[in-house]
């Protein structure tokens, strides 16, 4: 399968450690890829580089084997883009904005416009300034989907939508995916990505720290352990153990996360009166949070 999106050593250095650094990424044609990271991690910079809005300091990016900068017009003929926030269109009405962007793209089917607006319950008769945040997002969805693109680049697309419209939006994405469209969905919310993506990349401080299938992330052996003592809890028993983090205690209980073997924990508990001990697999959200958080000493680096 060929790559719909490919970046090689893609770097945009804004100075002061800000930007995107040495991004090597491949998204296959027809794949739904989630691009996760906290605010300011470099998600929007990546998207702007793919769309040819900004120029890379070094490295390259291509979409469907077309160079993102040199063949920018051809790229955008094939791409549907939804920005994190639509710009101000002031006094233009929704139908005027749709007509304008439809004309710029060419070949937009009026029936497709009608279908999307009907499904999202979007009134194109209103002026842009009269739209609520949710309606502006719906208009953004319409502009991204109306020409049936081969690649969808979506920047936090469902934020601001009510649950009903979120469902409708995810249906649209699933339909596009079923029709062979490649999805590149940027978000800082896991639940948004979980709805449609089978593979995710996690970006932090401008660097890609993990690319994995969703189920792989589930399999990472980080466990939440809960130990109940007969008497006073003894958190100090675990604080210095290898692979143990986030030690907390309350009443008779001590909880912590543990990676790797349980043997050091069992050794530490030897000779102590333990009433109960439980181990849980953490939620996917917690797994992501471990990637989001700065490692000790990293912030200063």
């Amino acid at each position, binding site marked *: 399968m060929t790559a719909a999106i490919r970046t090689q050593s893609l770097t945009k250095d804004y100075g002061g450690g800000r930007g995107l650094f040495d991004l090597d990424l491949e998204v296959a044609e027809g794949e739904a890829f989630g691009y996760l990271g906290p605010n300011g991690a470099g998600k*929007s910079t990546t998207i*702007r580089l793919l*769309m*040819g*809005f*900004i*120029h890379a300091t070094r490295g390259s990016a291509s979409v469907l084997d077309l160079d993102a900068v040199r063949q*920018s*017009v*051809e790229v*955008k*003929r094939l*791409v549907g*883009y939804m*920005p994190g*926030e*639509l*710009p*101000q*269109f*002031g*006094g*233009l*009405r*929704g*139908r*005027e904005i*749709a*007509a*304008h*962007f*439809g*004309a*710029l*793209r*060419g070949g*937009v089917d*009026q029936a497709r*416009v*009608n279908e999307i*607006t*009907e499904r999202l*319950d*979007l*009134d*194109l*008769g209103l002026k842009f*300034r009269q739209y609520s945040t949710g309606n502006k997002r719906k208009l953004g969805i319409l502009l991204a989907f109306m020409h049936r693109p081969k690649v969808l680049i979506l920047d936090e697309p469902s934020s601001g939508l009510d649950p009903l419209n979120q469902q409708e939006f995810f249906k649209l994405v699933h339909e596009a995916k079923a029709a062979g469209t490649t999805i590149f969905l940027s978000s800082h919310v896991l639940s948004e990505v979980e709805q449609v993506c089978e593979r995710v990349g996690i970006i932090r401080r401008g660097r890609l720290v993990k690319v994995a299938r969703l189920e792989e992330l589930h399999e990472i052996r980080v466990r939440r352990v809960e130990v109940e003592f007969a008497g006073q809890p003894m958190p100090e028993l675990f604080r210095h153990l290898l692979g143990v983090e986030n030690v907390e205690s309350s009443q008779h209980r001590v909880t912590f996360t543990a990676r790797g073997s349980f043997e050091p924990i069992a050794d530490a508990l030897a000779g102590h009166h333990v009433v109960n001990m439980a181990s849980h697999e953490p939620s996917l959200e917690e797994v992501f949070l471990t990637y989001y958080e700065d490692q000790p000493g990293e912030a200063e680096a």
Partner: protein
Amino acid sequence: MIGWMAWHLHRRGLIGFGVGGFFGSFFYGAAFQQAAGTTAQSQAAFGRSISLVAKQFAFLIPLPVHPETLGGYEQYKWLAGAIIIMMIWAGLNGVAIGRGDEDRGLSEQWIAGGVSRTRLLLARSAAFGLVLLVACLSSVLGIIAIAPAVHQDPNVMGEILKALSMFAGLLAGYAVALLISQLPAERQTATAFGIGALVLLLILNGIADTVQSASWVGVVSPFHWMERTSSAAPGGSFDLGATLGLAVAAVLLIAGAVPLFLRRDIGNGLLTWRGRAHGAVRSASNNMMLRLPFSEGLWEQRVGLMVWVVSTLLLGALMVSVTKSVSDALLADPAIAAVFQHAASGPVYAAILGLLWFGFALLLLAGYAVVQVSRWSAQDQEGRVEMLLSAPISRTRVVIDRALEFGSASLLIVIAGYLGVAATAPGSGLNLDAGHLFRASALLWPFALAFGGLGVALVSRWPRIAVPFLAAFAVVEYILGDLAPLLKMPDWVANLSVFHLYGSPLTGATSWTPVASMTFVFLLGFGAALVLMRRRDVSSA
């Protein structure tokens, strides 16, 4: 909070008008001796000639007071023109504070942060007032600094009192625009009406100054009350009552804007047409104007553009209708008649109309270029260009469409001006040569394109600073066009000014050099825009 706002929200205007004001007054002061000579006799003769010629500009600029002195010359040649430019700037700020802050989401942020609407409007007005005061003082500081070097007394108190009078008048102009901006639904419409109101007040003052039976209409114009202070000239007067009156009017108008701001919704004007309830619209518009970016731009600014077109048409007609009476009054003075017979190469009425209307039309078109660039700059910063580039169109196309949009709009304004003059001239007793009138009007277009080309280049690379840069360029070009002949600068220096390049086509001989030069400036700007746009990062962030 006021100091923070003044610096963070107005620093470009503060630097532009502060530095520009200082150097403008400095250079006009430095040019005085070159123009007037160094002896008392030559300066007196210079003053007499200025007074004679000034009568033809009385429609726009008040008559000079002691133009044979540095202060009087500066007050007439520099401050009178600077006041008009600064009034447009004050008006743009009135609308920006009244409505622009809302489009940028700033008003909501402040109000959500616990700032009351009343406090917000008053604090924003006080912050701009602070910036305006600095700009007014800067515009007279240059002359105080240069006075010893040209062996003239620095009339410090008179200059400062003149600056205070300007401050009060300009603040009143700001307040007019602020008040009007509360009414229309759109910011663009508010800009058109706010600036249109200030231009109307300028015209009313012109009518009051030139038509004796209508002198009463000037009382509503801040220009009229500012003219009553002439303290920058030795022997001039400071009208305390007029200055205080302007200040009180400004405060009352700002206070009047507060209840309107309290009454209306954020992001909407007070006079909003609700329209009838209709069923939800699901389909895109069939409007052909939306098919291309340049025609979409014209469609989007249709109300503002219509105001420009109609205002230009009416102004052209008005100027023509007063030309004969103004000319006859002037020519009744044998000395002025002699000046015109000697200086004007064509018919006298045409020569006076050329100065009265076409000189003003140049400023109007330069102003339109600044307004248009301001619109593109706002769109760029709001993310419109990024969104446009998300469609399959190239950056080259964006630049071409901007040039087409500006070219079409400025052509409409030029045509409106031509029609206004051509339709009114026969009935006004002016026997204008049709060919010369067409040529003089047609030449306004390459003049506008020259400014448009530069504006497109600036906004393509530096959208945040394009507006103050273009405005400063217009001022420098105007000053250069004005001073170059006085200072007997070489032709190539004078020809650096687009205002000078335009020349006097209504009475002068036909020459293709100005057309070629102005077209070259446009092409240079356009070419630079293509290169600069291709290289820059486009981002709303």
